[in-house]
């Protein structure tokens, strides 16, 4: 690790002076399960590390009739233990998949969403994920993207919980230096809005919009600017939504899945009336499949309809030279997530 300064603010407002707008200059430390490893390999080498775990307002789970709000530094094991999250099986199933007690009780939800890509070229110091397109294309891309991979970004979004949260319509609160301009509604670009003349502003946006596919070096994997952080995640409550996450995991360890999908279904009178299907580990962002949703809406969930939704999900996949098998795994993930959400047997392991 390169030497760095360390700060541990205790209030959101104290963040204001700690961040630099220069990319890479400041790193946000939450659970550390990704950041510290990256710093050890000097893939990231910040001048300053800001530990946000001491900020009490970023911590904890609160629920009301509208939904559940989870602070960014809430640990994953605490989310597993929270009865407030029982209504969202997709989230708990995704956390359980991170099969390491240590990683669950050390990792935070904010960090889980903001972790960097697992792309092994990136992790081996070959450059930023966005600079590696040609290398990935010609190289060993067995774990890389099969969707959204036409641009330079060919890695897969690493977050294992994001597909579930996106499927459930979660939103994310971001704070950072105030832009000074008031914006109507949730800003698409994540620019925080000034609050009562504070130096910090906040923005709330759908989690689906939080993840972006970068087109050029130094564009991040999320909308976050270098001086912004995620503070909270909000999951809207809807008693009629059934949800599930299915991951194709080769082993019962903490390794990342080969493909995954989350399904959130509104089932009325035995028929799906609304669906949101989000694939994980297949694209640079959690991949929302409108086609899969359209295929299952209007149907009763059966092995056949689930399979058809899986097939619809992957119909337009664009696998790279070595990851055609992931198309099959993505199809099965969708199929099984839908079956699992509906409480049916998946037929596999």
């Amino acid at each position, binding site marked *: 690790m390169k030497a760095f300064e*360390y*700060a541990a603010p205790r209030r959101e407002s104290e963040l204001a002076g700690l961040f630099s707008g220069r990319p890479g200059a400041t790193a946000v*430390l939450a659970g550390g*399960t990704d950041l*510290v490893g990256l710093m050890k390999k000097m893939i990231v080498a910040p001048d300053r590390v800001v530990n946000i*775990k001491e900020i009490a307002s970023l911590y904890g789970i609160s629920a009301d009739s509208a939904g559940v709000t989870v602070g960014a530094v809430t640990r994953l094991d605490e989310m597993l233990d929270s009865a407030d999250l029982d209504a969202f099986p997709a989230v708990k199933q995704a956390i359980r998949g991170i*099969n390491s*007690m240590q990683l669950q009780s*050390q990792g935070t939800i904010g960090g889980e969403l903001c972790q960097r890509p697992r792309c092994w070229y990136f992790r081996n110091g070959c450059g930023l994920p966005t600079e590696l397109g040609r290398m990935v294309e010609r190289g060993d891309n067995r774990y890389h993207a099969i969707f959204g991979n036409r641009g330079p970004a060919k890695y897969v979004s690493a977050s294992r919980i994001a597909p579930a949260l996106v499927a459930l319509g979660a939103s994310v609160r971001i704070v950072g230096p105030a832009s000074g301009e008031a914006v109507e509604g949730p800003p698409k670009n994540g620019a925080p809005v000034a609050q009562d003349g504070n130096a910090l502003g906040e923005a709330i946006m759908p989690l689906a919009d939080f993840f972006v596919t970068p087109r050029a070096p130094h564009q991040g994997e999320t909308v976050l600017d270098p001086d912004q952080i995620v503070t909270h995640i909000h999951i809207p409550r809807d008693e009629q939504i059934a949800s599930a996450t299915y991951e194709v995991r080769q082993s019962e360890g903490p390794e990342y899945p080969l493909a995954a999908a989350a399904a959130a279904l509104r089932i009325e009178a035995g028929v799906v009336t609304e669906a949101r299907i989000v694939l994980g580990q297949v694209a640079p962002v959690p991949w929302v499949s409108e086609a899969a949703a359209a295929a299952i809406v209007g149907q009763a969930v059966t092995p056949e309809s689930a399979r058809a939704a899986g097939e619809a999900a992957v119909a337009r996949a664009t696998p790279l030279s070595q990851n055609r098998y992931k198309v099959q795994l993505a199809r099965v993930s969708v199929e099984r997530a839908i079956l699992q959400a509906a409480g049916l047997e998946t037929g596999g392991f």
Partner: protein
Amino acid sequence: MSHVQAPEASVRPTKNVHVELTVNGEPREFLCAPRESLLDVLRNRLGLTGAKEGCNNGNCGACAVILNGVPVNSCLVLGVEAAGAEVETVEGLAKGSHLHPLQQCFLEDAALQCGICTPGFLVSAKALLDRNPDPSEEEIRLHLAGNLCRCTGYDKIVRAVQDAAKANT
């Protein structure tokens, strides 16, 4: 959450930090640079070499310790983060010469071979039994999946944890 620094000091970025904490029930202190991991600090500054560095990225669990009641991979925790914390390491499992039931069962069930993963497994297993005193075999297999044994004593580790759970109850 624990706080040892005044808010002002916590905001001012620092290069060297004086940390006070409790390790295996004993108050300890050290001065460290922010880049030193808790594992580095335990091993190099506090002389506790039970926790091992296996992979340095959270995948092997050889460095597991219990931090404020939960198991963590100490290679991924900064030493400065442990300010005010309670840390339990493998060295704290036995009470004097009286071994913890887990240690006893690991010995009797031959759940250790080269032994380098053993401290991490013991600490994780203790964290598991602290939370769940009577885990099923499947729960043991899933919950200890963050620990790696290459020799590999998996089968016997599962039995040892089961036996320790029985001995505890």
